[in-house]
């Protein structure tokens, strides 16, 4: 019986197709209708679907003048005009041959198209927490990566650039820390393919959609637990007149703030341990500059009825403020798509090529070789070079090196060449049923060449005549994705289904070679074999290779009734090679529903209310560990040697315990949301509450040896909770013909709690310490404890300074103050909780003012309710150091009026933990659009002047309270060796031809 029904359906479908074909062939009682489709601003709309009502087989799209000509229209029929983002219109053609229509955008809040996993949805039908930022709302200025475009514009998405390194990528976090071992960075998809914030040039981005809650992200299964950021690039539309655009800008940058260290006068006044060497050197000046950045983007795009094409070219050269640091990028992306067989088949190719280059230097090193670090600690009375013309060095003082020589005597280059190729075939045999095959490969070659001359401090100290290395890395990501979607709307029902398969293969390999003691510095890294170290066994060489696979099957069903009730179910079954034999596969379901109350009959009277929808959803997502082979018993050859029969032989050592039960970390998250729009869209917004729990959280457990071969095992034991709220408000407070003011406010709050780290088999103490501060402090500064958030500082509590000039530390047991001694900082008996490093509240406030041809935008960001460990104070607000020190080392920081003496070693205590609250004007831009008369040559000319990081209002005494917070265990740490953040001024122009 079933078979019969199927045949029936099929035959009906075939006969329908036949009928349609016949219809279009045989012209009876039919006519030709033409016209123009425009928007309310009378701009022609390109690519509007024009079909005959009741016979969607007859249709065309409008050309780049918004015109259409449609044959075979029934004499008394009607035409349907539909276009994404606009309200569909039906117009009768009875007695008319010319039908021009004006399409209404309607309620943006409802009709806007948002990108969801593997497809798009009308915002009104969306049942989960998704935020969209379109290109016109992006921040302009000195934009380093895609993160800068939307900073402060998406509630709950924390984007931070904690350093001024021109090669540093923004850190992004969504809804808290969910994993201790896996990544906490959202999945970033660029046109459906895994990438990062720098994959495409910011100018090429059309929109950025953020899938915030698990019910939306679950379709991405194991990669979706931190949320998904979907970057859609600009391509081309059919019937698009060829347009070319140029946008370019130039920027100058300098350090936003520098630390107040002693100068040569202070040294002469005996405020340091330095002796007066008779010179006057501003070391920070000596290693920095006002840097220059220029960025150019040229694009061409267009299309006719069957073929579209685009090409984007971007060149960016960004200098860093520290000498010799830069990022040089050439990016080109081009694609062509062709529609065949009456649009049944679409084939597209996209190619993207990137060349990236930057210098190898010590500017972002996290140790004593950091350039900035050496500049601030160096004796300001020392010369850069001595009378003999040699670099001034004093190796008698430990960890103390000339920062200028470090820059000059290190010569290195990092080069990356990246190619992404994508082919897609889309088959749409029936309107509404689309099957798409995407094949993609993303391959990168990285090559680092490094040369330290004989005069580099490391060579001088070790008596090497030059050190050189080459480091090659290759990565390959192959993707295959097959999806099939079916959409249908009948009467009041909307139905959509998706089924898909995805296959991802990742491969990494590399090779490294090092040699030293060259005959001459002349060769640099270009004659590696010349070094003597190869002959005496001190050269080194390594290579590696690893791969992994990720396979997923997924499906989604979405149903809507009468624009009031929407429900969505999705599931992904995903497997990764990284896990134990018993647990390679996991299932990630989600369910969500929305109720658009404003469309109910009983709400009809509330005319001021355009839209009110409540949403609820639950989804399960997974977290994948970063490395492969984690479940296997691995052995290393040659990591140790042993002496046997008069010979040294390679040993075979265990490198990991097996864990065949190793499996996915899973996060289950609830989301309740509310979307609203009032007063004709003048005020819109959304509110979300979420509660997520990670279980089976991976953690490296110390296990007893024996019986285990290795002393730690990676196991799924822990649990963590995150909950919070997110609020977005968009408003247009003023709107007149000449002047508009648009404002966007975002707010988010997250609270985190570590619920468990133990089970019967794997036990740990209920806490562990982290936030290690290196030599000479060598103390922990943070603690993760079950029952508390993961961002807690844990240090001795200083209550004053003794007459001996040492900290007075409170003994928590007795409440008495005890004079500091060196054993306190790693002794739990003296440490106490001392604030937390992640903000309670993150705020964004964007404003755009338009007056005639002028526009002004301001993007504020703010973080409140958190503390910062000022590492520079730990190290240099101290009078025991042999190095230069902060002027504040001379301040009495407690009411007892005592100052720190040389008896107080550098240490960590809560006296160095400060409130971090800040409000920052992240970007200020003034733009002017030339009021051009229509001409053949130029369509649009716009100039803009912007300033990034103009000012920060904060009580924090360090460099910049906006921290990357990229590493767990170091939340709230303002790192000693960070590349200081910068302020830049940018002048830019956009031209459209």
């Amino acid at each position, binding site marked *: 019986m079933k078979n019969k029904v199927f045949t029936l359906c099929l035959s009906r479908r075939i006969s329908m197709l036949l009928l349609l074909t016949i219809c279009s062939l045989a012209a009876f009682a039919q006519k030709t209708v033409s016209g123009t489709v425009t928007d309310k601003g009378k701009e022609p709309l390109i690519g509007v679907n024009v079909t005959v009502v009741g016979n969607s087989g007859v249709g065309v799209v409008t050309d780049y003048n918004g015109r259409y000509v449609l044959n075979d229209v029934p004499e008394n029929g009607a035409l349907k005009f539909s276009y994404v983002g606009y309200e569909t219109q039906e117009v009768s053609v009875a007695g008319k041959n010319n039908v021009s229509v004006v399409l209404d955008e309607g309620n943006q809040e409802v009709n806007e198209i948002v990108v969801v996993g593997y497809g798009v949805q009308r915002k009104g039908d969306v049942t989960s927490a998704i935020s969209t930022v379109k290109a016109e709302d992006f921040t302009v200025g000195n934009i380093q990566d895609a993160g800068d475009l939307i900073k402060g514009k998406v509630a709950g998405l924390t984007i931070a650039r904690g350093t001024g390194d021109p090669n540093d990528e923004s850190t992004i976090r969504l809804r808290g820390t969910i994993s201790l071992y896996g990544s906490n960075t959202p999945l970033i998809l660029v046109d459906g393919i895994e990438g990062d914030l720098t994959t495409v040039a910011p100018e090429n981005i059309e929109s950025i959609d953020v899938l915030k809650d698990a019910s939306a992200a679950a379709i991405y299964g194991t990669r979706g637990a931190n949320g998904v950021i979907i970057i859609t690039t600009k391509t081309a539309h059919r019937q698009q007149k060829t347009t070319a655009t140029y946008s370019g800008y130039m920027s100058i940058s300098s350090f936003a703030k520098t630390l107040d260290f002693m100068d040569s006068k202070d040294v002469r006044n005996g405020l340091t341990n330095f002796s007066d060497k008779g010179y006057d050197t501003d070391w920070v000046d000596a290693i920095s500059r006002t840097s220059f950045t220029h960025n150019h983007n040229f694009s061409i795009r267009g299309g006719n009825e069957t073929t579209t094409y685009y090409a984007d070219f971007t060149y960016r050269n960004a200098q860093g403020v520290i000498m010799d640091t830069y990022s040089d990028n050439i990016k080109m992306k081009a694609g062509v798509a062709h529609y065949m067989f009456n649009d049944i088949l679409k084939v597209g190719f996209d190619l993207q090529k990137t060349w990236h280059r930057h210098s190898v230097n010590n500017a972002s090193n996290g140790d004593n070789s950091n350039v900035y670090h050496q500049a601030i600690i160096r004796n300001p009375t020392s010369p850069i070079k001595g009378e003999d013309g040699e670099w001034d060095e*004093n*190796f*008698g*003082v*430990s960890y103390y090196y000339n920062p200028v020589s470090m820059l000059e005597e290190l010569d290195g280059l990092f080069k990356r060449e990246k190619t992404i190729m994508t*082919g897609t075939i889309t088959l749409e045999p029936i309107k509404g049923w689309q099957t798409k095959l995407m*094949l993609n490969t993303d391959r990168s070659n990285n090559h680092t060449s490094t040369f330290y001359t004989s005069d580099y401090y490391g060579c001088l100290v070790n*008596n090497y005549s030059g050190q050189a290395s080459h480091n090659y890395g290759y990565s390959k990501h*192959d993707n*295959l994705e097959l999806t099939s979607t079916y959409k249908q709307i009948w009467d009041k029902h909307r139905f959509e289904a998706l089924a898909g398969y995805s*296959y991802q293969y990742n491969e990494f390999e590399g090779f490294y070679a090092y040699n030293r003691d060259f005959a001459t510095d002349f060769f640099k890294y270009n004659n590696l074999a010349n070094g003597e170290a190869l002959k005496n*066994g*001190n050269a080194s060489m390594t290579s*590696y290779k*690893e791969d992994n*696979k990720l*396979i997923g099957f997924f499906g989604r069903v979405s149903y809507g009734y009468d624009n009031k009730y929407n429900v969505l179910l999705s599931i992904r079954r995903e*497997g990764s*090679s*990284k896990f134990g034999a018993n647990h390679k596969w996991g299932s990630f379901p989600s369910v969500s529903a929305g109720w658009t109350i404003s469309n109910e009959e009983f709400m009809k009277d509330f005319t001021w209310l355009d839209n009110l929808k409540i949403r609820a959803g639950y989804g399960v997502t997974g977290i994948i560990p970063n490395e492969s*082979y984690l479940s*296997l*018993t*691995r*052995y*290393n*050859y040659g990591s140790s*040697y*042993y*002496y*046997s029969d008069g010979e*040294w*032989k390679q*040993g*075979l*050592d265990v490198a990991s315990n*097996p864990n065949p039960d190793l499996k996915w970390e899973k996060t289950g998250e609830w989301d309740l949301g509310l979307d609203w729009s009032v007063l004709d869209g003048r005020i819109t917004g959304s509110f979300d509450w979420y509660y997520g729990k990670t279980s089976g959280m991976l953690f490296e457990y*110390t296990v*007893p*040896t*024996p*019986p285990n071969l290795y*002393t*730690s095992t990676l196991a799924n034991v822990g649990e963590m909770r995150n909950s919070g709220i997110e609020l977005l408000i968009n408003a247009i407070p003023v709107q007149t013909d000449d002047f508009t003011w648009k404002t966007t406010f975002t707010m988010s709050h997250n609270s985190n709690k570590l619920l468990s780290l133990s089970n019967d088999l794997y*036990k740990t*103490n209920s806490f562990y*310490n982290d936030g290690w501060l290196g030599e*000479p402090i060598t103390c922990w500064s943070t603690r993760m404890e079950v029952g508390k958030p993961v961002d807690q500082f844990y240090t001795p509590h200083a209550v004053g300074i003794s007459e001996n000039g040492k900290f007075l530390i409170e003994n928590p047991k007795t409440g008495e103050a005890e004079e500091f*001694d*060196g*054993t306190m*900082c*790693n*002794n*739990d008996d003296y440490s106490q909780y001392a604030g937390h490093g992640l903000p309670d509240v993150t705020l964004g406030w964007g404003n755009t003012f338009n007056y005639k041809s002028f526009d002004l935008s301001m993007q504020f960001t703010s973080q409140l309710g958190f503390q910062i460990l000022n590492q520079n104070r730990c190290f240099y607000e101290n009078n*025991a150091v*042999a190095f230069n020190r902060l002027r504040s080392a001379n301040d009495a920081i407690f009411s007892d009026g005592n100052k720190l003496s*040389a*008896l107080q*070693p550098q240490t960590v205590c809560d006296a160095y933990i400060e409130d971090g609250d800040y409000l920052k004007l992240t970007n200020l831009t003034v733009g002017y659009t030339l009021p051009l008369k229509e001409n053949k040559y130029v369509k649009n000319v716009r100039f803009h002047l912007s300033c990034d990081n103009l000012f920060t209002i904060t009580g924090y005494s360090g460099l910049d309270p906006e921290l990357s917070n990229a590493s767990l265990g170091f939340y709230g740490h303002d790192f000693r060796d960070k590349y200081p953040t910068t302020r830049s001024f940018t002048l830019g122009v956009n031209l459209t031809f």
Partner: protein
Amino acid sequence: MKKIIFSLCLLPLAFTSCTDLDETIYDTIAAEKYEFTAEDAASMFSPVYSNLRNMYWGWNGLNDISEECSDLWCTPFRIGVGWGDLYITLHQHTYVNTLDHVWTEWYYGYNGITACNQLLDDEGVQSSPTAVAQLRGYRALYYYLLFDLFRNIPLDTTYDHPDGWQPSQAKPQETWDFIISELNDIKGKCGADNGMGQINDATVNMILAKMYLNHEAWFRDGDKSFYGKAIDVVNEIIDSKQYALSANYLDNFKEDISGSPEIIFGIPFEYLYASGNCYANKWMNEAGRATWGFNGWATGGSACLPQFLATYDKDDMRLNETWIWGQQYALNGDPIITDDGPLVYTTTLSSINGCYPMEGARLVKYEIIGSDWGTSYDDVPFFRYADALMIKAECLLRLGGYKGETEQDAANLVTQVRQRNFANPAKATRTVAQLKGGSCYKYGYQETDPNTGEKFETTEGGADIILGGLLDDLAWEFIGEHHRRQDLVRFTMTNGQNVYNGKSWFCKKALTDVNDHHLDIFPIGIDFLDGNPNLVQNPGY
């Protein structure tokens, strides 16, 4: 091209490989995916040896834990440089379960034991009696060291365990019995001379001797019979006539000591293959490296305690063979001058909480070689013949004679060991009275404020130490050879307290409670407690 890629990629779809998640491993070996050969199995012996190297000279290794807590030297906070912290903890005996040293010893010790257990479980290994004896010997050595440091330790002697099995601590008597019975089982089966790093028959006797020698200090049951047992096993070594004192004291601390007749058990280290001893880095000032043309890192942390330096006889050649102070000279004989003046190490130390970089004499007992060598590849003289002689001397003194040998024979043995160190033979002689008398170490708290020069001092002296003279001799002979903590715990004072707890030195204060012995052993590291809920922390921590 496109078509080819397309069809290639569709291929996996058509077959089961579209769900195939098997892993391919390339640059490491995984037991699940590799057939071990006989050669591979031989290489698995490596961790048996390498873990002892790491236990001894890993960062914060066996010699550090045995001496930084002692009355010989320390690593103070260096004003302007750093150090201090956990080394202060060790010096002041304020041990905590996060102390890195307790981690190092336990971690490498048990890794060595696991490697032995794994190999002893292998049928191929079982068929070789020499391999079995060697592995059982090594395992007993690891257990002896862990027993001395932690006492209440898990005793695991097999490899095969049910899933989820976690070890519990054995009673000290059980562990003692196991070590003794293992050593007795392999007695005479290891071979007379197997070369560096291999346990031989004399090594087995040395471990037994150490076990017997310290029995009273560990169990405090008043049973003196173990001193006799110690003499018996040491006599076997002496009677074999296989070993002799080397002509020069320093012959035992060279980069290569395999030629010294005194070495009973030595751990081999080798340039490019196995590095360890970083005392050149840890003790020397950066500018001071010029004395040897040494290029490795050097931060000049550790320093000799002035109270200990003062105990040496000025004519004892070991004083200058072990320590340097005063103006330092480069290889070419020029005095070393730094930016801040001549490089002069003082013999004074201000405070454990604050010393200037040049304070304190530096250890040069281990050979320092130029270039990037330093002390890193110096072999370890784990058991020396001199040690065997001194054990016998001590036991004879403790027993007042044994099997016809007298206390004077004991004094003769000590004199014999000292002779190579004195130009004037008369000065080498030690009498029974001297050895049984008090120590010449001027015990007492001695701290100076490095800024004001203000002194905080107490005087305790060493007169009340039983066999105090012998204790001094042990220090002069075995400084830098993981001896001192064990010796200080074993030697007692007239009030019954051991020297380790009962005396103050530099910035370490004596324990006031005579019956408090909890510091005799270290706390178990927090990581290991966390990893195994069966473990119980040692009492008092």
